[in-house]
């Protein structure tokens, strides 16, 4: 039962919307982390390192941006990491056998998208809770990938293809351009299209959304397919950046992506959050790891620190939202 009095959102007094205020706090947090790291380490503020952080954040962001849409509908996609692995392996094989990067990229995106679509079908047609459905999918995908790769590594891709992940354009890494492009597209899609509005409405109350004439099932399919396609995109970036792929690359990608979404202020209950927030979430996560590397902090501390940051970020988010009343 919804306790309105507790979840009461304030009347915005200024022109700034709640989301804008939250993003502002997050940017402040980013600046704070940057300031601390800059004081502790000389090389932190170098252009090279900043580009470095952005490039590293981009991979997390690609996965997390699609995931954001899923979470906005009050769903979850635990299979994104496994999806990246399978898509990368299949795309890699296609490039190897056909020699055509374009074909490979298309297969990678398609593979990711199809997996996402299957997730969507499980959630809509079979009505399995997304959390469970995508957990099942995670293992199915792992099984497929393991079988397909049979413990081998794919490696060695054409130089042109490798530019996507490791090339530069006017001094900026290409993934950073892609990041900006998809940040823009994602934000526009969520905020400035009717599909975006419908996705927010579905997250806020799926029953009411359906009875308001929103094609809920189709939108959910779209959202899961987009999430899958973004995982496919991430797999391409991964391939071209690392010049290789093996079956276990996905495992370490899922939780950071979810963490980025949550740190970015998207609510698991659906209907609240922004793609830009997710970008900042990815940035914060990457900055912290970067800082720990620069400061030579033992990696043993990394899970601990990440855990604390996730809790802190969400708590502060709730705090500031409440105080804004």
């Amino acid at each position, binding site marked *: 039962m919804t306790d309105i009095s507790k979840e009461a959102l304030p009347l915005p007094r200024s022109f700034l919307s709640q989301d804008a205020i939250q993003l502002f706090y997050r940017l402040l947090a980013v600046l704070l982390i940057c300031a601390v790291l800059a004081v502790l380490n000389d090389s932190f503020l170098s252009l*090279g390192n900043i580009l470095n952080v952005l490039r590293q954040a981009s991979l997390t962001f690609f996965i997390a941006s699609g995931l954001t849409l899923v979470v906005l509908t009050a769903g979850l996609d635990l299979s994104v990491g496994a999806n990246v692995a399978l898509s990368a392996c299949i795309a890699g094989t296609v490039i190897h056998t056909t020699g055509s990067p374009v074909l490979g990229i298309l297969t990678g995106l398609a593979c990711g998208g199809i997996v996402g679509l299957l997730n969507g079908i499980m959630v809509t047609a079979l009505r399995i809770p997304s959390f469970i459905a995508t957990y099942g999918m995670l293992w199915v995908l792992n099984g497929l990938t393991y079988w397909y790769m049979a413990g*081998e590594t794919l490696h060695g891709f054409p130089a042109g293809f490798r530019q996507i992940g*490791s090339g530069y354009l006017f001094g900026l890494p290409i993934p950073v351009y892609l990041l900006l492009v998809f940040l823009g597209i994602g934000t526009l899609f969520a905020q400035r299209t009717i599909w975006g509005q419908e996705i927010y409405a579905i997250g806020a109350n799926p029953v009411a959304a359906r009875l308001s004439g929103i094609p809920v099932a189709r939108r959910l399919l779209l959202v899961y397919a987009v999430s899958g396609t973004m995982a496919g995109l991430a797999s391409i970036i991964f391939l071209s950046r690392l010049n290789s792929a093996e079956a276990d690359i996905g495992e370490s990608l899922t939780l950071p992506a979810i963490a980025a979404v949550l740190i970015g202020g998207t609510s698991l209950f659906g209907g609240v959050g922004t793609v830009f927030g997710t970008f900042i979430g990815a940035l914060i996560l990457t900055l912290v790891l970067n800082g720990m590397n620069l400061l030579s902090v033992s990696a*043993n501390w990394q899970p601990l620190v990440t855990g604390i940051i996730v809790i802190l970020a969400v708590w502060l988010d709730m705090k500031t939202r409440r105080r804004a009343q």
Partner: protein
Amino acid sequence: DGETIAVFTKNQTNPFFQTVRVGADNMAKAMNAKTLQYIPTKPDSIPEQLSQIEDVVVKKPSAIVFTPVDYKAMVPGVEKINDAKIPVVNITDRSAGGKFLSFVGADDYSLGLETARFLLKTLGGKGNIVIIEGVKGSLTNVDRVRGFNDALKENPGAKLLASQPGNYQRLQALQVMENLMQSNSQIDGVLAANDAMAVGAIEALDGANRKAQVIGINGTKEAIDAIKSGKLLASGDYNGFYQGCIGTMMAIRALREQPVIGEIVLKPTVITKDNYQPFDTPLEQRTCPTFEEASKLSAK
């Protein structure tokens, strides 16, 4: 003839264990036996390998060729096998307990030492070095890193800048390397505890248009290709294929009451661009050593 050999490996994601499995299959086929592969569905999962042992004990294969996912935590599992009186050969990581017919493995320490020595020799005994470690606490990692460090100690001119874990993961190694390059303007050598991380580090160096000598360990196909193209300096050969072959051979020989060798520690080979050719053949086409060859290997 027709014995079934249960082969336990750590995961289905690391190419190294694939070479072990192919080696075991080849040898079994050659000796008219067959293999059953047991691999945890979650990579390196201790509880799962323990469960698999329990299930296999029910199934009673003729013999077992066993790689523990953790050399200490799997001891109770080995004891279960012993209790069930199934002959078992230990390969790759030396189990901390239990009774084995034979141990076939490589010496991680000398592997790390030799490979690192090769890199330092190439650099003329000096330069700035970083180590990228594998999974903390895994036996292979501890010994390899110890070998790296001892090689560094022999070369006082070399300076260790950082030793950070990449968890045997390509992406993590790449990111660690990228970050380390920010705070260290000159890196001359990279000692990576496996090939995937070595290749990850190379990608990072390439991306920043910087050069350093990199070594890895395992002698995977990918590493051989990188050595061929001059990107990777060397890879310490862990000889997974031989481990699979010889482990299976010992198990089957024991069943057939032929003599076995109690311990074979494969000598490290540092694969470089001068000697990579024999390693450049597809796994399936490689041939297992004969017993005589194997006993020669053990003599060293």
